[in-house]
């Protein structure tokens, strides 16, 4: 990974907030005055099954918004882990919701894999349904491509007005993830 750009894939089941996580990250890049792009999968998979999105954050204009070799992978289900794990560039970082994904077999040694029981934590902390934000918090903290304040500000941009009451929950989830011990 060049220090000036970061290509990410967020992947999981539809309904887990995968596209939303990516959108928050893209907005964080925008707030931090970076060039950004966000591209969702919109194929048959979004009509039930897996969802994913590509996010690029860079100092330069973004070329292809489709990420094929991610620096960062955030996964919330096993099919997505299996699909994308080999495409992560050496030295890349992977963030897994270990409540939902059981990693079996040999793990790649040339990348950093962070396993976080995000769904379990969300249930314990009364943050049901936003395990995605816990995982995002961990990722944003470890990757550091944008400052955490930008991520928290981005949530304000992305949570729609009719769900404003969930804003604090989302922020708390991000902070919980960021501060969760490795």
């Amino acid at each position: 990974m060049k220090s000036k750009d970061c290509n990410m894939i967020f992947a999981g089941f539809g309904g887990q907030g995968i596209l939303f996580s990516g959108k928050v990250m893209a907005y964080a890049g925008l707030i931090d005055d970076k060039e950004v792009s966000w591209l969702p999968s919109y194929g048959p998979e979004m009509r039930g099954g897996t969802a994913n999105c590509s996010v690029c954050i860079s100092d330069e204009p973004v070329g292809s918004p489709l990420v094929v070799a991610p620096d960062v992978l955030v996964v919330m289900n096993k099919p997505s882990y299996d699909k994308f794990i080999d495409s992560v560039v050496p030295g890349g970082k992977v963030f897994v919701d270990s409540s939902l994904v059981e990693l079996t077999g040999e793990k790649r040694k040339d990348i950093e894999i962070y396993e976080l029981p995000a769904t379990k934590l969300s249930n314990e902390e009364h943050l049901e349904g936003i395990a995605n934000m816990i995982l995002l918090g961990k990722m944003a903290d470890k990757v550091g491509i944008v400052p955490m304040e930008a991520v928290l500000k981005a949530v304000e941009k992305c949570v729609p007005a009719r769900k404003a009451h969930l804003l604090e929950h989302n922020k708390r989830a991000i902070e919980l993830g960021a501060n969760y011990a490795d």
Partner: protein
Amino acid sequence: MGKGAERVLMKGNEALAEAAIQAGCRHFFGYPITPQTELSAYMSRQMPKVGGIYLQAESEIAAINMVLGAASAGLRVMTSSSSPGISLKTEGISYLAGSDLPCLIVDIMRAGPGLGGIQPAQGDYNQVTKAPGHGDFHILVFAPSSVQEMVDLVFLAFDRAEEYRVPAMILGDGLLGQMMEPLVFPERKEEGRKKPWATTGHQNSRPKNIVNSLYLKANLLEEKNRERQQRYEKIIENEQRSEEYLTEDAEIVVVAYGASARIARSAVNSAREKGIKAGLFRPITLWPYPKKALGALGEKVKQFLCVEMSMGQMVDDVKLSTSCKVPVAFFGRCGGIIPTPQEVLAEIEKLAGR
């Protein structure tokens, strides 16, 4: 792009819709189809708020004929669809052209032929630039390659369509329509041009206007076509648009438009890092094709590489623009596959003898 607080993040489809509203479009007729649906959905939400009309027609054919009706009355009007839907609209587009009516048509291309697939492609190039319907006519075709440019070209497309009294098209694809990117909306400007030809009702205060494409007398129809041809000549003279990137000293120049041009640009950057003198020529108008600029470039480069999400539909236009003086290689993916910068780089390296 200017940096600052006014940058917003929007999907290409939604940005097209918002730009049209800001450009004074108050009439939208469409029929949903992936991957342009967010455009229609945005219009359905926003048009009522600005006192405009959003109407989901019973079919694409109905929608384009509603466009014809509204355009006849001199209104800024728009429709959008994706490849199979554009095929259905072609009859109406021909009638619009034959009636000398301005309008904006958006095509967010998907893979074909037939129902094809819903992933991005550029397989409508020949259709929209060569034969967007039956008869002797052309439409303006603009090919943005970023969400910002989608916005900018909406304003330009409406203005030029009205100036020349021709339909205009914005040709995007599923990648540009679905992706979000930062953008800045230009200063708001409303519709300006007077349309003395419009059928607006006149209480017998002037001779009546007739909007029509039927001319049963051959000499009259030929005269009509000749007059229209003169406007096309003016368009070809004045409206060619393109962008060049790192072409000053380039030996190998990639020619690509729309989403393919973004990918090609990344590949050109990588080629430069490897010491290959590569550049990019990006047509912004596909009709009129930027022949003047590409022809001039053809005088000084050794090799062109056409990169498309099709099987090579633009190659002939590159050859014609350069009078076949320079070899034109081709690399393309289709079926909904987006070429990667690595694949394009590999082609550049091959041509450079690496």
